[in-house]
């Protein structure tokens, strides 16, 4: 038995995982999605914003982390647009501006919103934490032009902001550095609430900032994006993937159980 378990080709596990994840994507099961306190807090901060309020979305993730954290940013941007909140999009990671552009593209082509008035993509500023500090102190100086090389001081949305105190909320969606630590450090002394969205692996290490109250809400991975979509009443791609996520976890748990069984049976039989 243990020899059989130990000799299973890992590629069979990949095939089983692929099929199990694919099936509910094509034929959804509709497993319930509960809302965590992290997501509820995040939603509460966004929901209390008024039409005309200005927020910052810092898109600091690359395409490799995009599938995990991107759906969060999409859901929140849609929610903000529905509430007529104005969004200043920035990035301190070179790969960030095209990711931000993907989020705002549907609104560039209509939906009753205007680029430069309702939202803006300021592009990328090099320098990581130093650039974040410069942005918080003087936004237009840190970004002299936007993603399309339009001078920032001619963009209507940027007329009413100077520093970070002029916005209600700063959101950071990150896959590493710069990320929550850099934003929490550099926003100390400024007034906006901080909301964080990270890839799943960064969730536990970011939680201390949430427990201490330094950030007001935390989203971790695709699961949190699905929770937010459901909470905001706008189910999208993240919610559609939750059946697959749950069944995928079942396969992984079974594989781990079988692996451990093979190990203990082998040890009991004297094998090393």
């Amino acid at each position, binding site marked *: 038995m243990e020899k059989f378990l130990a000799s299973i080709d890992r*590629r069979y596990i*990949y095939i089983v*995982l*692929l099929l199990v*994840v*694919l099936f509910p*994507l*094509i034929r959804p099961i509709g497993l319930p999605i509960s809302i965590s306190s992290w997501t509820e807090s995040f939603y509460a901060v966004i929901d209390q914003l008024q039409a005309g309020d200005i927020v910052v979305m810092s898109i600091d993730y690359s395409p490799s982390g*995009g*599938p*995990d954290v991107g759906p969060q940013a999409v859901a929140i941007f849609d929610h903000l647009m529905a509430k007529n909140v104005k969004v200043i999009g920035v990035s301190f990671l*070179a*790969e960030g*501006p095209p990711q931000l552009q993907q989020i705002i593209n549907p609104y560039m082509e209509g939906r009753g919103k205007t680029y430069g008035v309702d939202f803006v993509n300021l592009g*990328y*500023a*090099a320098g990581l*934490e*130093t650039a974040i*500090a410069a942005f918080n102190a003087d936004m237009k100086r840190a970004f*002299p*032009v936007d993603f399309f*090389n339009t001078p920032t001081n001619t963009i209507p949305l940027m007329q009413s902001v100077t520093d970070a105190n002029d916005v209600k909320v700063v959101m950071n969606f990150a896959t590493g550095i710069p990320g929550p*630590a*850099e934003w*929490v*450090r*550099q926003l*100390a*002394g400024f007034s906006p609430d901080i909301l964080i969205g990270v*890839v*799943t*692996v960064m*969730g*536990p*290490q970011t939680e*201390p900032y949430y*427990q*201490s*109250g*330094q950030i007001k809400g935390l989203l*971790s*991975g*695709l*699961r949190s994006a699905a929770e937010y979509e459901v909470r905001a009443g706008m189910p999208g*791609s993240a919610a*559609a*993937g939750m059946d*697959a*996520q749950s069944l*995928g*976890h079942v396969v*992984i748990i079974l594989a781990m159980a079988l692996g451990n069984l093979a190990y203990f049976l082998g040890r009991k039989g004297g094998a090393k």
Partner: protein
Amino acid sequence: MNLSVGITLAAIMTIACYSYLWRENTLYRIAEHLFVGLGAGYSIAMGWNNVKTNAINPLLNDGQYILIVPLLLGALLFTRFLPGSNKWLARIPMAFLVGTGIALSARAAVLAEFVQQIRATIIPLNSVNNILIVVGTIGVLAYFFFSSKFTEGIPGLKYGALVGRYVMMAAFGAAFGNGVMGRISLLISRLQFIFGSWLGLM
């Protein structure tokens, strides 16, 4: 099925990357090299655009001559690639970068990552969560207390360190679980792309 060049190419590259799971192959290596090359090229282009926007254009168009200083410092970084004994010149901008970075982060780190985090553990022991936070924090701190042996010296240090060890093992387990969850999320996204955006089956 969407046969536009961008979508089809992205789908083929996705399949090429996942083909590594079967075994290493030429298609995977092509995708890998393309990714590295495109990534490096993109980063250089974005970096150059940043230098142009923030330094060269204001210098040439607006006469902000003070920007010659950071441009020169930036250029000095490349002296490490020079032959001979001039490599030390790169240390000047490097020292400037390190000094500025440390000053900026240290200024706020004391409050944001030290005082606030300590404050977050000074809580009433009136719930299981609060007790776990306090006991876990003290246990992990005890584990990393190296001024005395666990078996002698400070009484209770041995048991404190043991608690800390189990707390860390639980944390590593949670991190691994989150890692698995993240990888499944990536797979879901790519399957949604291939079977939805490309093949139109969703």
